[in-house]
Every structure is written in C-alpha cells, then in structure tokens.
C-alpha cells in the first residue's frame, strides 16, 4: 500500500459528483488515451453494473469523454465535454449492459479507433476514491494502476525480452519498483508493465523501442 498523503484526504480536487463514477471513470478513459498514444477518432464506451445504471446522473458519460480528450479530473470543461468532443471531431457512443455483470460493479470497456485507424480495446474498473485499474488491453488480462511512473511495453513473447528491458533501464540508472509480465498465449503478444520510482527520459524510451522484439513502448507519467 502506498503512503497516505494530506492530499489523498483533503483531495483530490475534482469535478463532482462522485469520485468513483466521475473522477475514476475519467481516469480510466484518460489512461486509455495514453495507452493508445494517438489522437482518438471514435470511441464506444460499454458500461456495466452501476455505471450502466447511473451514468447520466453521475456525469460518468461526460467524464469518460473528458478523459478521452485528455482532461484531468479537476478540469471544469468536463461538464461540457460532449461539445468539446464535437469541436475536435471525436465521435463517441455509449453501450449499456444491464443485468448480469461478470466484472467489478463500476466497469467500462473502451473500443477505440485512432485517427490512424488503429483499434484498441481497454477494460477498466473504477475501484473507489477516484482510483482505477486497467484490467485488460486487447484481450490480455493485466493490472495497471498508474500510481507510479509506468512504461507499458507491447512485445513478442520471446526469450530475452525482459533481460533486455531491465538492462536498458539499468543503463539509464532507473530503479524499477515493480515489473510484471502478461501474455495471452505462449509465443504471441505479451505486455510488460514496468513501474518505476522516477520518471524516465525520451532517450531511454527510444532505446527500449529499438529492439526488434519490442512492438511499442508507451511511457505513462504518474
């Protein structure tokens, strides 16, 4: 568990009304945007459980769109995010799943298409107090919280990749707090989530991406 700060208790500063349904939802979409690492052209949000029931009264819908636009949880534009999205030609849809919910009560799935036509699937859970966890990227089950400076690496599932990654970071004097490897099937695509104590530089990221086994590396600052 991370230490609790004054600003966890007197904070976060946020657009209401609900830390889980508004701020947490926004943070899932914001993280999805960072993972896509490109401008979003179109997004469909599939809402489950409590999200599907109260999304309008909690402004969950506006918060999700705000997150996709890159807003922080305390951005006063969130309330009018639909208008801003139209201005920026970002299309958005909501798909409500009522009844049986196999996931956390506050779950949203994002089906995103970038302006360059790349499609990404992300499932996130809003776990309370504005905190969230990304549980699935493109079918691979993961755990990504964004509590640390994080690198999300998409790679081929081959020997030596993890050694390569840790070597790279060691050369740039980066201390790894946590490093987790996820994959769907042996020999296909895998994800490595590297959580660090300190931010990294562009150059380190470039070096990581230089290896042929690495398909992409996205840096997600805390």
């Amino acid at each position, binding site marked *: 568990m991370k230490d609790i700060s004054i600003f966890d208790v*007197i904070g976060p*500063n946020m*657009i209401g009304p609900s830390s889980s349904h*508004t701020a947490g939802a926004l943070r899932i979409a914001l993280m999805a945007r960072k993972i896509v690492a490109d401008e979003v052209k179109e997004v469909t949000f599939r809402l489950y459980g*409590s999200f599907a029931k*109260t999304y309008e*009264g909690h402004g969950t819908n506006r918060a999700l769109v705000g997150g996709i636009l890159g807003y922080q949880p305390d951005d006063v534009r969130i*309330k009018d995010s639909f208008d801003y999205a139209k201005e920026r030609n970002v299309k958005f849809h909501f798909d409500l799943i009522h009844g049986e919910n196999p996931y956390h009560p506050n779950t949203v799935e994002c089906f995103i298409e970038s302006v360059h036509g790349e499609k990404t699937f992300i499932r996130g859970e809003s776990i309370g107090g504005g905190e969230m966890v990304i549980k699935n990227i493109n079918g691979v089950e993961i755990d990504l919280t964004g509590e640390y400076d994080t690198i999300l690496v998409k790679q081929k599932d081959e020997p030596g990749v993890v050694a390569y990654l840790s070597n790279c970071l060691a050369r740039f004097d980066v201390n790894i707090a946590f490093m987790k490897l996820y994959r769907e099937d042996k020999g296909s695509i895998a994800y490595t989530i590297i959580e660090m104590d300190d931010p990294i530089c562009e150059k380190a990221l470039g070096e990581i991406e230089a290896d042929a086994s690495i398909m992409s590396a996205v840096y997600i600052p805390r």
Partner: protein
Amino acid sequence: MDFKNVKELLALCEEHNVTISKIMMKRECDVFETTEKEVEDKLKVSLKIMRDAINQALEKDIESMGGLLHGESKKLDAYLKRNKLFENEISSKAAAYALGVIEVNASMGLIVAAPTAGSSGVIPGCLFALQEKAQLTEEEMLQGLLNASAIGYLITRNANVSGAQGGCQAEVGSAAAMSASMICELLGGTPTQCTHAASHALMNLLGLVCDPICGLVEVPCQTRNAIGASDAFISAQLALSGVPNVLPLDEMIQVMDDVGRSLPITLRETALGGSAIAPSACKKCIK
C-alpha cells in the same frame, strides 16, 4: 517522522509540545520528501476551491445533474439571515455552506473531495463559518486543514472513508470527525481534546447508512453534510468544555470500521435499501 495511530500521534504532540497540525505537516514533509512551502501552496489551492464552491451556491440556484437538488444552500442562508433567533448560529451557517458545496458537486462543479466527494461539504462548511465568526487568518485556515487531514489519514489508514465499504458513517462521519478536531484545535483545544472531539463526532453518526436516492450523490447526501457540520460543532464544543468521550479515538475508529462491515450491502451505496427504496424515492428515479 511518521505515526500509524492516534496513540502515536498524541505521543509525538506531547514529546515535541506542538499541535496535531504541526505533526501532520512534519510527517508530510518527511514521508513525501516535500517542503512546508509546497504543502501550504497546495492547501491554498484547496481553500480557494472550497471558498469558490460555497460562493457559487450562495450566488445562484444550482440545479444538480440528477435534478434532486436546486438552491437549498441559498434558501437556508437567506432564512438564517432573516431569522433573528438563528442568525448568529455558527453551526447553521456551516450547514448552509455544506449544502452549497454538495450542490456544486452534484452539478459537476469543482470541489475538494474531503475525504470524499459525497462528504465534501462538511469541512469547508465548518471552516468558512468559523472563519467568519472567529476572523481566522489564512495561516489558521491552513492549520485547520492540516489538523483535519491528520484525523482523515488515520481513519483512512485504520478503517475507511468509503460509503460503499462503511456506509455514510464512514463518509460524513469521518468528515465530521475531521472537522470536529479541526475546530477544536483552532479554538485552542489540546491535541487530546481534538481526538475526543473526533470521537464524539464519529460516535454521534455511528451506524448511519448510505442509501442514495436514484443512486446519486444528492439526497440524502446533501442534508447529511449539513448534519455532519452541526455534529462537528457540537462535538468540538463538548470536548473544549471538558467533556471527554469514553472511547479513545483509536477505539472509536475501530468501532466505526466494525459497524461498517456489518452493514448489509443494501445499505452501502447500492441504492438497494433505506431511503432509496421508499415509494416516493423510486418514483423520482423513473423518468
């Protein structure tokens, strides 16, 4: 410097002969490797957001997203102004302000979750009502927030402040406990008196369920924030007058946690019980 329960906090206050707020500032600087200046600057932003939210609600009727709230803060404030019996009532003033912050929250306005969005009215309500009556300086306002955050930190660490986990007693109850301690320190109470004030406040709201109508942070959240503010003032006054609580705050926090765990799931933010399922509440939700 760090502390993990009330006992350790009070021991540190005694050892250094300082207030709870001072110890909390020291802890923040040590644990998070930051400076007093940085902490103060961030708290000044919190104060400004709180003040702006109160003002917005006093200036115009704000309609909530769910449509259940509309201008309650302004109404109560106007009533207090025209009623000689209540006009100097500090806890009524605090209640009016608390209503306002919840209105702003429910209309997708900017607030400080303190400790949560659903209980965000209590601390600003108490603090700004006190500022008006006691002419607090900005420095004292920051001191108040530091004191409140010490109590909030200990409740978060050793129990929880979430309605989904512990009911409204964990949200508004915690906000009231934080505020009671804050008021106590600002009015010259000792660290021990502050913790008794917090114990009173938590005990008074013990068992309070979370039963939001239509599942929204509107009713009864708004008026419970007003009650939380009143609870904070009476609890602080009790402690300052020399009335301790039977339970030290560490025990009280544990009791609140235990009661929260034993609340049925229908009464923990699910809108499946309590006020949320009364016929008139259900009618509101069908549009």
